């Protein structure tokens, strides 16, 4: 079943002169990890905002078409109720701190307090979440006085703890170092294993290749490519749309160009070892 369905969505911010999204249609299945890629200013964040209901509830503006979450239009549900099914994490770790909690522990508890969860239950869930996100050592620290990478993990954990079915994550690692990026992806991967649906905007294409099931390429407010990760990220056409390909795919494409007959363009390290390694072993046997 499609847990998220975007139907012919066209949207213009109140302050923008042009349409930011033009006739976007997208279906995401339950439990799927869908990555949205594309050049800057393509409308990726706006699409996230639409799925989260911030467009049009928060930003207003002109919207045509509709976004269905679990078959229900976001127009008919309040933002607060949507927050229960769609969790939202965005780019800037610094503004995703509630600003009211004195400790990381309190920060994680904030969402649950707002939902009226019993204090004992909150303590249990926060302790568990601290473990999952490897934040135990920071539990008593102020959320303002930890590093950006740690803040982003706190932000992600604060959303996950509310147990939304869908996680919309907008460029979570753009301000982070490789180590923190990996930690964020580990948590996202864990959520996918728990059956959450994940919609991720990310520029680090190798990570997109490694983790996602479904890739959507947006350019100038329209979806130009939409398909499985293997299919999209091995297609040189992606390069025409201001987006890069995984380094392994570039290698594979280049090898094919030079006459190496690979069965399939690899997109991840594992596939590259299998495809290219396999190719040379076969050659050696011949």
């Amino acid at each position, binding site marked *: 079943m499609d847990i998220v369905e975007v139907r012919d969505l066209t949207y213009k911010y109140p302050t923008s002169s042009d349409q930011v999204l033009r006739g976007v249609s997208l279906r995401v299945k339950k439990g799927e990890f869908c990555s949205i890629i594309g050049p800057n200013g393509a409308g990726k964040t706006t699409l996230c905002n639409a799925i989260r209901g*911030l467009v049009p509830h928060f930003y207003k503006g002109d919207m045509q078409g509709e976004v269905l979450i679990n078959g229900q239009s976001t127009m008919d549900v309040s933002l607060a109720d949507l927050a229960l099914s769609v969790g939202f994490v965005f780019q800037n770790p610094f503004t995703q701190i*509630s600003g009211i909690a004195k400790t990381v522990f309190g920060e994680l508890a904030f969402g649950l*307090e707002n939902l009226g969860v019993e204090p004992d239950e909150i303590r249990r869930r926060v302790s568990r979440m601290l473990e999952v996100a490897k934040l135990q050592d920071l539990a008593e620290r102020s959320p303002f006085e930890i590093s950006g990478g740690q803040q982003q993990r706190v932000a992600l954990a*604060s959303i996950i703890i509310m147990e939304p079915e869908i996680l919309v994550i907008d460029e979570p690692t753009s301000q982070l170092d490789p180590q923190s990026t990996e930690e964020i992806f580990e948590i996202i991967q864990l959520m996918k294993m728990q059956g959450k649906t994940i919609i991720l905007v990310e520029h680090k294409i190798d990570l997109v290749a490694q983790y996602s099931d479904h890739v959507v390429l947006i350019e100038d407010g329209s979806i130009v490519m939409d398909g499985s990760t293997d299919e999209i990220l091995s297609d040189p056409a992606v390069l025409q749309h201001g987006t890069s390909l995984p380094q392994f795919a570039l290698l594979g494409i280049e090898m094919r160009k030079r006459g190496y007959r690979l069965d399939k363009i690899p997109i991840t390290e594992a596939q590259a070892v299998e495809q290219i390694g396999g190719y040379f072993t076969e050659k050696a046997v011949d």
Partner: protein
Amino acid sequence: MNKSEKSYVSSLYPITKLVFVACLIVSVFFLYNYIYDLVCFAAMVAIAASDGKGKAYIKTILKTIFILIVLIFLMQSFLHSGTHVLWHWGILTIHKEGIWYAINLSTTLLVIGGAIALLFKITEVEDLIHSLENSGMSPRATYVILSTLQIIPQMKMKSAVIMDAQRSRGVETEGNLMVRIKAFFPSLAPLVLSSIVGTEERAITLEARAFTANVKKTCLDMPQDSKHDKVLRIVLLVLLGILIVGRIILWIL
């Protein structure tokens, strides 16, 4: 503070402390008497000390209210006219009445300022606000107050960063008054603007954490009100009532 050995003061419900401080402030207006004021102040220092915060409390007073009081004392002594001249030099004259007025005014201010300072010394602001929310204050108000407290140190840090950035662009930020005034706008404007921009994302963050969800919120560290606190509050209010009524009767007679 060590949680295992809670002092009596810290075991009180924050609203009780608030009522105590409020009663103290109101009582000062009805007993306009510097001896009472000084007794009150001594009591407040003792209360702070019993909570292990005597030194910190006196330090706060010296750094804030005390300076203000000295200024007001001087101004009132010079400005208040009367018949008994104590000291005279050029256009400056101090009258006996002025001194009395100044003493009374400054001790009153000492109690009012000191009481407010005391409240925040012996009460965690979070606890106070949460208990106010418990008594029916809007969670939005709670958020505004608590986030302001958290955000002020953040703004301070941010402004230091902005100052550094502006210095690296050649804006002079140190030197005489004129230089500082000139540096004021280039450093303040980015701070204000970036805070306004941050507000939008902060609002989204709050939405994402179900802040506007239509349910009764819970609170992890809700301070507990006790029977003892309720009795204490009633006693305080009755005492204040007696004082006010007594004062009015004295006026009428």
